[in-house]
């Protein structure tokens, strides 16, 4: 197991950013606050909009996101034990709300459908006066809501969204993503796969037929091919597919010895269950044991697939078993309040809420353009992922990525994954104009009204 190390390059970059920020304080950071933007809070409260799936296939994940947001609001308002506010490197948050205004929230149901998510976000902005929208459990939803927030002039702090496009071709100035992405999964997984399964493998991809599936397939394909693997076939599977047997059965005939399941949620649960039923993992092909890989893991998926995940490699954004101070503080306050450890979706949502609040405090204003400036190239630590940079070029967070595998002997229904490696941020960093992210333009921030 390797741990994240601060690289020389990273240190210089950090120093440069910190120095630049200190020398040239942006106008917004000096301003006392601005009116003249959408939903400028006037009373002694501020309303945040939590847009999570409360119905549909990701309702359980949405429920966990909402728990995290409620915890974040409690901490922001000075309740509870403060959680990661105590370990967060920025000390702007005082536990007295945001800029002294008590934090209130409204919730919307994305249903994991782009149109429903836009409608609920719009309602929270127009009717409830939400000054920021956050949450979600799908890239389709994130991209749609992000575009809406850009038009409406509010900040969008993305929840769980892993497609490259969210901060690639569909990036927007008002949108920010803390969660990692397909490229990072590929870059983190490839060396671990090479070390465990060798560099001479024939891979067969099954890919969910939508945006996230494509970017994940591309990322895993390019990073595994770069280390010598061959891609035998890549087959698209309908998003509504429930039985994958007709896609799994031809895998062995193709001569492949590795199956990559670019599936999420119910798709992944079913395709992995089917693959294990077909006995793929007991087979020997090309003189090697057949292997299955799941590029993106979530706890709910691992739970749904049960014992089938044992020993299968994948990646996650965060895991509750991390031993750093931030993670432990979060697990403690979440676990004490709800009785079980938080999921990675809960973690990213909690962090996003705190990051937004902190940016407003540092900017001294709720004005979205001030918040954008405060978040861009902001470097922080103590939030469970080590040193993290919110890159200004594409509003993507850069931090260590966890490579995990299904645990052989889980002790509880939450103890399903074990961390195999913490891939240092340098290994998953890419240029903003990398081909997998090309074609996007942040544009300029929109403060709205």
């Amino acid at each position, binding site marked *: 197991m390797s741990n994240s190390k601060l690289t020389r390059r990273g240190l210089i970059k950090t120093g440069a950013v910190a120095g630049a920020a200190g020398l040239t304080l942006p106008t917004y950071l000096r301003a006392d606050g601005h009116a003249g933007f959408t939903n400028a809070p006037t009373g002694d409260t501020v309303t945040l909009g939590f847009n999570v799936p409360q*119905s*549909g*296939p*990701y*309702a*359980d994940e949405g429920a966990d996101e909402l728990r995290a947001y409620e915890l974040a609001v409690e901490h922001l308002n000075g309740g509870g034990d403060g959680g990661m506010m105590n370990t967060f490197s920025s000390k702007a948050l005082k536990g007295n709300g945001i800029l002294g205004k008590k934090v209130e929230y409204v919730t919307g149901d994305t249903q994991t459908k782009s149109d429903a998510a836009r409608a609920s976000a719009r309602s929270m902005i127009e009717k409830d006066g939400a000054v920021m929208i956050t949450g979600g459990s799908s890239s389709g939803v994130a991209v749609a809501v992000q575009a809406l927030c850009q038009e409406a002039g509010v900040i969008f702090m993305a929840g769980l969204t892993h497609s490259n496009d969210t901060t690639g071709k569909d990036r927007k100035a008002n949108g920010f993503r803390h969660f990692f992405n397909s490229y990072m999964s590929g870059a983190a997984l490839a060396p671990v796969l090479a070390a465990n399964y060798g560099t001479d493998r024939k891979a067969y991809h099954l890919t969910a037929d939508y945006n996230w599936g494509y970017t994940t397939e591309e990322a895993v394909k390019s990073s595994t091919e770069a280390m010598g693997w061959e891609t035998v*076939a890549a*087959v698209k*599977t*309908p998003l*509504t597919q*429930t*039985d994958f*047997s*007709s*896609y799994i*059965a*031809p895998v*062995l*005939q*193709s001569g492949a010895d590795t199956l990559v399941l670019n599936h999420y949620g*119910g798709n992944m*649960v*079913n395709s992995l*269950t*089917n693959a294990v*039923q*077909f*006995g793929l993992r*007991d*087979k020997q*092909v090309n003189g090697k044991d057949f292997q299955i890989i799941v590029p993106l893991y979530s706890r*709910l998926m691992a*739970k*749904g*697939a*049960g*014992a*089938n995940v044992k020993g299968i490699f994948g990646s996650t954004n965060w895991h*509750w*078993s991390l031993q750093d101070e931030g993670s432990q503080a979060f*697990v*403690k306050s979440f*676990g*004490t309040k709800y009785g079980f*450890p938080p999921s990675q979706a809960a973690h990213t949502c909690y962090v996003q809420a705190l990051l937004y609040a902190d940016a407003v405090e540092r900017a001294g204003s709720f004005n979205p353009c001030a918040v954008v400036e405060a978040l861009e190239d902001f470097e922080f630590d103590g939030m469970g992922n080590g040193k993290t940079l919110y890159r200004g070029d594409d509003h993507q967070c850069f931090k260590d990525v966890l490579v995990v595998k299904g645990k052989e002997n889980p*002790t*509880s229904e*939450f*103890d399903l994954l074990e961390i195999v490696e913490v891939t240092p941020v340098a290994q998953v960093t890419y240029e903003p104009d990398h081909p997998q992210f090309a074609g996007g333009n942040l544009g300029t921030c929109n403060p709205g009204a």
Partner: protein
Amino acid sequence: MDAIILQVLNGLDKGSAYALIALGLTLIFGTLGVVNFAHGALFMIGAFCAVTLSRILTLSHTIIDDTKKDFLGNPLKVEVPYIYDIFGQTTGDAIIDWAVPLSILFSIPVMVGIGFAMERGLIKHFYKRPHADQILVTFGLAIVLQEIIKYFYGANPIPTPAPEAFTGSFDFGAMLGFDPNTIIYPYWRLVYFAFSAIIIGAVFAFLQFTTFGMVVRAGMADRETVGLLGINIDKRFTIMFGIAAAVAGLAGVMYAPINSPNYHMGMDFLVLSFVVVVVGGMGSLSGAVLAGFLLGILESFASMGAVLEILPGINQIIIYLVAIIILLTRPRGLMGRKGVMEE
């Protein structure tokens, strides 16, 4: 050749599920004249019977293990199933392992009960109403049932594995003289196919060889005349509704290990099952079974790599395409009778 055999095999288990659901749909339609959109929900509830029984079998009491710590550093609470206390750990584990097959016994009374309650409580009030009303009320009922299940079991799929003895797959390729590993087929899917064949056979035998079945068939052909002969056909039709519900439920129970049950699985099958019924011919039991297997196999073929290369996207539309062709050439479906839904 081996690829073709493989996809035929693959189509069989999917076809089995379609056939079992379509069989129940047709039984209800043929006897009661009701288009039951809640039938997929019955399939889903069947699968949740398996989930429920495995939860009952693993009902536990907690003991505190001071030697281990939980994620918050407190002493670990270990769940010990009551069944261990009764039968000991080895026998207890074996019983838990066989939860799905045991659920067959558990689900029959549950499903027949639900079927009776549905028919007596709601659907009987809609016999004389237009088909559109029946569709609306049963579709609404399906959504209600789905939400009830989601409330109690959550939205996430729940793994419900088959007994250990049936894990792994059978190498047909080696048996038929092809290269090893070219035609493999999971044991549980073979079990599912055999189970479906038995259930379908039993339903046909029941209708064909028993007096009860004869009366039901007579009622299906001419309800009024049978009623005039002094036979209480309504009561028999209610029983048929219960049987149809049990068939859908059993299809669901045995399907649970194939794909982890979730609250939405009924809807996934419902639309396809209606296509199956229409292709087979409204009101025709053998048509439903035939069309179920036919469409299951065609769907498997359509997702073959070689086919997708020539016709991309065919896997998503094949069933509807075949339905259109069959309905254009045989408007009553493959084995439809004259006069059904044509008044």
